[in-house]
């Protein structure tokens, strides 16, 4: 009986070893791969100027004064020069909710690391372009 019990224990240990060797790791090899973000993820914004009417509802809705519209700036179409300050933004989504012209949305881009604080002040050109695809930008995907 003792022999069978020992064999059973060895079998259990081997089962664990085999399972752990061939199982997928639970961690991600960040930054080369990343998890899938849900559709509603409140990441950095994207501004669609064709729809924007510069009504300023997003500016009024923002609780931390992170959005600014410069109406005197005539360079941009329809005077909608939208500046985003990501050192202040808390990603509450009130501005996206306040926009009734479908001109402001969240994207699933959540890693906004920059070398300096000034780089987090997004200017009107930067806020309307996504310089990378939300999930594919890192080049290497392992899964």
């Amino acid at each position, binding site marked *: 009986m003792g022999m069978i019990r020992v064999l059973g224990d060895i079998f259990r240990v081997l089962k664990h070893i085999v399972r752990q060797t061939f199982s997928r790791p639970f961690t991600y090899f960040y930054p080369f791969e990343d998890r899938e973000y*849900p559709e*509603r*993820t*409140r990441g950095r914004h994207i501004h669609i100027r064709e729809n924007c009417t510069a009504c300023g509802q997003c500016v009024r*809705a923002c*609780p931390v004064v992170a959005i600014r519209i410069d109406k005197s700036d005539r360079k941009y179409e329809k005077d909608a020069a939208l500046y985003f300050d990501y050192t202040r933004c*808390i*990603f*509450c*989504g*009130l501005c996206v*909710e306040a926009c009734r012209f479908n001109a402001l949305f*969240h994207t699933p881009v959540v890693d906004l690391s920059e070398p300096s604080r000034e780089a987090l002040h997004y200017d009107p050109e930067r806020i309307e372009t996504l310089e990378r695809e939300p999930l594919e930008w890192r080049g290497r995907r392992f899964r």
Partner: protein
Amino acid sequence: MSPDIRDEAVEMWFGPQHVSAHGWAAKLTVVGDFIVECDPHAGYFHRSAEKVLEFRTFKQGPLVLERMCMLEAFLAEYPYISAVEQIAGVEVPERAKVLRTIMMEASRIHSLQFWWGQFSAELGLFAMTLWPWVDREFFLDTFEELTGSRHAVSFSTPGGVRYDFNEKVLKKLDRALQRLEQHLPKFKDMLLRSPTFRMRTKGIALFSYEDALRWGLSGPNIKACGVPMDLRKDWPDLNLAYDLVDWEVPVVDNPDHPGQSDAYDRMVQRFLEVETSINIIRQLLPQIPEGPIVDPKARAKTNRLPAGEAYGRVEGTRGVTTVWLKTTEKAQTPYRAKIRGPCFASYYSLKHLVPGSTFADFIVVFGSLDPYPGWWDR
């Protein structure tokens, strides 16, 4: 304290740099291995939330509240919304009521799972720290799928809720609940029958319900003494859906010391709380009615409120959480908001509970009351 003891006494600080004291500090007077005096200090987390609320509109206010306690964000933002809805005199759609209640109970479970881990880590039981936190991830995934954020959810809004349930959310919530239901008996067994845990918690921080009432404790701390004090039953909220559910207030009555509770009883109480929350969610999930999630007219009514005052309250994970709101005529922001966090009372009850215990038991006394620094420093 007699004068001759005072000669031997040593004053020492527990925190704010101590690993178990992240953002709070208590001055302890120690004689040998025994604590003779405890002086809890608040103020390390102070963010002037009440003043900040005076400069935020009624839609922006809940964002401040949910940052008071990230662990129970769905519950923390509710008292403010309740107060706003009372002043405006609006009722939310049926679907929003049920969704609010489900997510508030899920938030309670999530917060309690975090506390099991935290408390076990403070006792040195690290297996019980990491295992519940794996299950907690599934609840966080649900929150993220629903609202797009894991902690700062901003789910409720005056007049309804902001995000609707879809197939994915329901699937994730069901998975999280299933996993917890499967693991709960194991966790209970692991912790409550562990000799180490029993030795560290039995008879520690014993107090009666009279003491608890005098110190202003509420929630699981007073329910563990055998008092079924629960705002969900005692003060039924019109904009929540607890009346659709058949449930009882969970109460622990330990025959060893009736009317009193120690750290062990409070642990048992929190397991019961989770079971009750699972029961409530399971009963509400098939009852979600069809319809809108937000009433636009009710929401528009809360842009400017009439003069008045209201007292919004909710049974939080740690006890009664309330916001008193006063507004002036046609106000866009509150004239005054007073937050009552549940943990100020439990933190300052250390003053009475700690003297007489050994230094090693101090963190057990503290952890068993489940205080969260964000709630006592508003």
